[in-house]
């Protein structure tokens, strides 16, 4: 009875279309008890909100639409509740508390930075399972926490040996922002360089959140003369560095690999400065697989011409929601122990294919992309790359 009532309300709301978007929120609350609620953190307001936010939301909603079309999770309609992940940690914490206590969400999904992740872990305290989606430094093994993200191993283990084989660089220079993700990535990369017999000519970090310029660093790199530069700069620093690098003409002789190079950043770097620049992540919008073609068709169909630009940070929420569906369906509950045993070895859909959860991280396909203008051209696919994480 209540179920059919809820369904009818849902149908009415859907029929009313976008004009009534404000109203369903109320109706959803009325049907709160039955829906399967995912509390999702993404960039709603803040510096990253315009970069990633719309994609994060669109991809998650696409996944939810597909799941609900098939009858939801365990017969329950899936509902997304949103909170800002591009916020001060205390703001994220209070949103998590609200979702825990008032909304009583069944699962948490987060696409945000590592500091906010630590805040959510500290707040949720494993009471509800939590899946974290964007690229990060690895090492998250808190109980009842699952990670879809690309890890340093998945990135470095693929791109560095491949480029060494193809381009034969003999030496390398490392530059990154001064915080944990670049440091951990570089530590991992240096292990690989040692095995490859590549010498590290320099390693430097620039302050996070400071107005950085890169003329001096680029000149230093020019003097060191490496065959490859490994870039673990983020955001505007990544843009500035690469524009300066090419401006000084270093792009003609030195290869670059950037660890966090998605579509927005490449647009900022621009076609003039992207020659000889590579990236290695689990998603590029130019990946050509049957699954991705289907994904993109569905995405275009749902959002039309004004669809937010596709990129790794954003699309990974799609896989995140699909993981929730797969694991809860298999476990038949969201209790911690059941989810944990169901999760290990489970395979679920991503935008480009499938991923497999092991040790609460995923084995996934990685793509090596070379920048051609402001587009990524996939030059190699690495299948089922292991995360290198060993969470119990």
């Amino acid at each position, binding site marked *: 009875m209540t179920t059919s009532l809820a369904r009818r309300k849902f149908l009415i709301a859907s029929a009313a279309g976008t004009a009534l978007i404000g109203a369903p929120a109320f109706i959803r609350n009325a049907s709160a008890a039955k829906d399967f609620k995912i509390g999702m953190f993404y960039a709603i307001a803040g510096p990253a909100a315009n970069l990633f936010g719309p994609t994060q939301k669109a991809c998650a909603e696409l996944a939810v639409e597909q799941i609900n079309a098939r009858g939801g999770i365990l017969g329950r309609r899936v509902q997304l509740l949103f909170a800002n992940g591009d916020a001060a940690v205390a703001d994220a914490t*209070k949103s998590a508390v609200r979702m825990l206590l008032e909304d009583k969400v069944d699962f948490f999904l987060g696409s945000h930075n590592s500091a906010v992740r630590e805040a959510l872990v500290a707040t949720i305290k494993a009471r509800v399972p939590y899946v974290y989606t964007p690229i990060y430094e690895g090492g998250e093994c808190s109980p009842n926490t699952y990670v879809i993200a690309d890890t340093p191993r998945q990135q470095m283990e693929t791109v560095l040996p491949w480029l060494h084989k193809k381009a034969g660089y003999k030496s390398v220079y490392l530059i990154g922002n001064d915080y944990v993700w670049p440091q951990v990535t570089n530590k991992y990369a240096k292990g690989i360089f040692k095995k490859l017999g590549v010498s590290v000519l320099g390693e430097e970090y620039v302050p996070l959140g400071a107005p950085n310029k890169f003329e001096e660093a680029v000149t230093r790199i020019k003097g060191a003369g490496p065959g490859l530069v490994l870039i673990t700069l983020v955001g505007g620093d990544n843009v500035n560095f690469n524009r300066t690098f090419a401006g000084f003409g270093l792009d003609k002789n030195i290869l670059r690999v950037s660890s966090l190079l998605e579509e927005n950043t490449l647009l900022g770097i621009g076609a003039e400065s992207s020659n000889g620049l590579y990236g290695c992540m689990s998603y590029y919008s130019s990946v050509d697989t049957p699954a991705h073609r289907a994904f993109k068709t569905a995405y275009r169909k749902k959002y039309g011409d004004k669809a937010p630009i596709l990129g790794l940070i954003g699309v990974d929420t799609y896989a995140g929601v699909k993981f929730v569906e797969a694991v809860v369906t298999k476990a038949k509950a969201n209790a911690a122990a059941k989810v944990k045993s169901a999760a290990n070895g489970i395979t679920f859909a991503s935008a480009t294919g499938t991923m497999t959860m092991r040790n609460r991280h995923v084995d996934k396909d990685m793509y090596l992309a070379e920048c051609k203008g402001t587009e990524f051209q996939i030059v190699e696919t690495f299948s089922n790359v292991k995360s290198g994480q060993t969470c119990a």
Partner: protein
Amino acid sequence: MLLLLLALPLALGEYWAFQLGLFFLYAIAALGVALCWGQAGFLPLGQALFVGLAAYLSGAALIQWGEAWWVFLLLPFAAIAAGALAFLLGLIIFRGRSESGPYFAIITLAIALLAFQVANSWNAVTGGYNGMKAIPGLPGLEGFSDVYYLAAVALACAVALCGWLVQAPLGTLWRAIALNERRVAYFGYDTAMLKAIAFGLSGVLAGIAGALYAPQQGLVTPELVGFALSADLVIWVAVGGRKRVLGPVLGAVLVGILSAELRERTYYWDLIVAAVFVFVVLYAPGGIGALLAPLERLLPGRRKALEPLRAPASKAPRSAVTLAIDGVSAAAGEVRILDRLSLAVARPGIYCLIGPNGAGKTSTFNMLTGELRAQAGEVRLDGDILSKPTPYRLARRGVGRKFQIPSVFGELSIDENLRIAVWSARTSLLDWLRPATRRWDTPVMAALRGRYPFLDDGGRLASALSHGERQVLELSMALITEPRLLLLDEPCAGLSSEETAQVREVIRWARDTLGLSVVIIEHDMALVKQLAEHVFVLHQGRLLAEGDVAAIRSDPRVHEVYVGAAE
């Protein structure tokens, strides 16, 4: 009130208790910002530094000893450490430069930016970018809403503390500094110390917020040290109202919670906040707190006038003063203002300093009090060479000054103005905190009240006084400090002849009762004739002539500089 606060979580539920608890903590830090900005008149723009420091300390202590009940005893130390750092920083900065304008704000901002880099890079200690994690809750208070009670009690205590400080003599002195710091220094107060105390207390308040933030959140990240929280605190204080005790609390709780709730739902929220902020700065400097004013008036229990207390004796020396200026030269830019000036005040009495405009009369005073640096020559006070004089040090040695344009503290009441003078050179740190100090009275003060009945109307603001009354008030304040040497710059300018006569009598009375040496810059020759026991005539930065009035009048050189060459 407190009961209402404690009952709130039962009505609103655990989530709101958690949320309110956090913003109560922010409100405590905001109270500190308001103490500095609304009371003492300087704006700290990097206050998060102290919140963050205490949070890291408290977090570390909890991680180390979180199981033990006595960890509660450690938390105050985190707050005190933050306060100590603030006090030291304040003392260093304020000693280096006496004013507290926007540059102080930018210094604190730059320090906070540096601290952010340290917190972000020093992985081993702070946990770096991802923060100091797995901080346990306080023993027995692990629930989401449990810290709420602690925060509510802490906030109530902080509000009470601030309310009390604002009422205490310290609050009066802070407000006086905000209005005219130089004048406060001329009353013999160490203004740098007073401001550093305000900054230190604001650090303690920020520290209390930080110390409780760590167990409430379970995580401390570098952004807690950074600019964003510092900026939010300032916006909350501005919008809430920086001059009222409850203003910052209103700002933090209302604006803070509205922002937290609406930012992610309202696309234009940041635009709205920016516009409201600009509006408040431009048109409503009192903030929301100003709306409370009518309510406050309704509250009963206005304090009755209390019996005055006899103030202790001044700590400044009491013996007669000797002053000798010997060959002093000084310049401003290219223009020579004092040119080998020599004059001496050897025994108590009334000395007049006259001369045409630009002769260097006020400059002589400025040179004595250290505002104009002497390039050559020396000044001896009681036989000791005065090197690097400051208004504060001179006041401590019994030298007072009254300015030409009356510089009483306009936004303070007559009573408060007089008290600042009474406390001069009589108070210790402890007295600044004791309300009883407000009742101090001295025979000189009583005598002046007798002469000038308007001084008894203590509640009036000094800005509401007439020009003549302000002149008298400032002269009274100078006399109440019971100086040995008093420098008066045109004490009768703009007074009616009746008022002039009264001032003349008061100066004579003060000389007789206090054994005072008075040096008066005066243009009114009638007054000079009536008052002066000795006259110095200055011309082009030099002593042209000196002697009694009759000798000066008959001096042809004096005649020439005043009226032009004789035919």
